[in-house]
């Protein structure tokens, strides 16, 4: 790789909670070419779906050369870095009226920096569910992703991003243009002691466009999980919903900055967001930052956020009925995250549910 471009600094407001130290260390260290392939099955959530598989930035199965990114996407320091260095990625185009079912994209990294550029274009009334699993199998790795999405009139994309583990850094930026009556569901599931930076920027450019940005973010160990959303209502009569549930355990810091902006002419906007965090250990931290920028006057923008600790009264109530502490915590934590999983596609629910208990156990409060 050439000279290291300047990485964002925590002095910049949008990056204040991001831990990019792995990027700084590994920016000039390409991932090795001959790493042994890990067991892919363990990472898959949609095992029967067509698979695109990258290992350390290189195509293994079903991957294309890196597609051309959306030239109109706003500049972004990490996404642009991915554009400069990626040699492979997912390139999916679904024709008008087609239902492409579920597609799975898996990128595993074990060492060095690996980039990918991905592009999804749905024609009018097309439908697609994409599961993206970004996972580390080693310690010194940085996976850096860019996904550009274009949704035609009435199209629907459900995109489930999963970061299930890892020790290094996973960074990801999704930019989506959502056309009239089209719907984007971006669900971010993180259960990681790694550093994670995930970003969803959706531009609602057609009337009755709909964007959902939900997430369950579990940080444990010394993880730094940082999610930023920017939902831009650029036309009237569009709708957006954001629901994030955060849990911070150990020494982790889990953060979300959820943004909604409403342009001056975007009347009849219907936007809502709900951000809640549980801090499970006194050594952990959670940051919630609702960001509303409203320039129109006839809009609904509901928002609420709350940071708290597990309710000891609820734990006692469950215990008084015979439920042991570990099971009680699991039940309460599952209940806490349930609101953020309502848009999970039914066909993925069993696989996610099966992993959820394992993920929640990692975040479970220590026994008193």
């Amino acid at each position: 790789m050439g000279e290291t471009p300047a990485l964002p600094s925590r002095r910049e407001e949008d990056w204040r909670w991001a831990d990019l130290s792995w990027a700084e260390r590994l920016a000039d260290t390409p991932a090795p070419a001959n790493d042994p392939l890990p067991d892919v099955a363990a990472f898959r959530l949609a095992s029967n779906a067509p698979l695109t598989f990258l290992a350390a930035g290189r195509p293994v199965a079903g991957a294309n050369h890196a597609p051309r990114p959306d030239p109109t996407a706003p500049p972004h320091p990490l996404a642009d870095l991915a554009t400069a260095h990626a040699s492979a990625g997912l390139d999916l185009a679904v024709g008008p009226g087609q239902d492409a079912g579920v597609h799975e994209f898996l990128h595993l990294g074990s060492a060095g920096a690996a980039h990918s550029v991905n592009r999804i274009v749905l024609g009018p009334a097309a439908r697609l569910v994409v599961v993206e699993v970004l996972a580390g199998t080693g310690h010194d790795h940085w996976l850096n992703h860019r996904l550009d999405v274009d949704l035609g009139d009435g199209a629907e994309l459900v995109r489930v991003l999963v970061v299930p583990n890892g020790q290094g850094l996973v960074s990801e930026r999704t930019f989506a243009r959502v056309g009239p009556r089209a719907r984007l569901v971006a669900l971010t599931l993180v259960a990681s002691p790694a550093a994670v930076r995930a970003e969803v920027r959706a531009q609602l450019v057609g009337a009755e466009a709909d964007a959902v940005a939900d997430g369950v973010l579990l940080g444990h160990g010394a993880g730094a999980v940082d999610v930023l959303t920017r939902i831009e209502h650029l036309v009237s009569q569009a709708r957006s919903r954001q629901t994030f549930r955060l849990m911070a355990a150990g020494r982790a810091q889990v953060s979300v900055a959820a943004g909604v902006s409403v342009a001056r002419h975007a009347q009849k906007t219907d936007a809502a967001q709900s951000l809640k965090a549980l801090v499970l250990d006194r050594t952990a931290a959670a940051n919630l930052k609702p960001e509303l920028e409203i320039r129109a006057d006839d809009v609904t923008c509901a928002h609420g956020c709350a940071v708290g600790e597990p309710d000891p009264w609820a734990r006692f109530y469950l215990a008084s009925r015979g439920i042991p502490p570990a099971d009680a915590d699991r039940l309460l934590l599952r209940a806490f995250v349930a609101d953020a999983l309502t848009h999970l596609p039914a066909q993925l629910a069993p696989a996610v549910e099966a992993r959820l208990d394992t993920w929640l156990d990692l975040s479970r409060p220590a026994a008193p």
Partner: protein
Amino acid sequence: MLAIQDLHVSVEGRPILKGLSLAIGAGEVHALMGPNGAGKSTLAHVLAGREGYEVTRGSVTFLGRDLLALAPHERAAAGLFLGFQYPVEIPGVSNLLFLRTALNAQRKARGEPEVPASAFLKRARAEAEALGLDVEMLKRGVNVGFSGGEKKRAEAWQMALLEPRLAVLDETDSGLDIDALKVVAAAIQRFRGPDRAVLLITHYQRVLDHVVPTHVHAFLDGRIAESGGPELARRLEAEGYTRIAA
């Protein structure tokens, strides 16, 4: 079944229970009556194992075991049930899932097989109907959106399905209208049996018109001031607690 000996309990250094002794045998229903602040709810919570209560002296034996040495969930599995004065709301956990999880956890702790989902649901519906609880409500989060009366019916529903040996009912009658009181009282009556016992904590005599106790205790300032039969409840109602205290 339950033997409390000289129990002293403090909360944040302040003595609440001051030498309570009480023995409850199988088949008995004990009513513990007392004014606000006497320590009635403290007793209920100490028996169930809530944190924050310091037992400074005394012992509690339940079915031959040292109750105070057991964790709260172990006490439940041993056969103790606490009916809460203010049942907790838990959004996101349905009443049905919660109670099936609880029942099977208790059964597992006792070395009994799990109850299959279909059998549980059948019994859950039957008990709900007997209590006038809408089965659809039981699919909601635990106690979420329930009125005060519905919460107390839900407590009675839990008790009926868990089949404990001893039910400690902390002001189960508070906040109930006449009709709801009769329904909950009928549930307690159905629960009564030769192998079971009830400790009914209450302010008022009215619930005892429907659940006639075998023993009544006047509970004042952290200890039992006087014990008797059902006539004591009527006397307390007529004369008030101050006469007993005097």
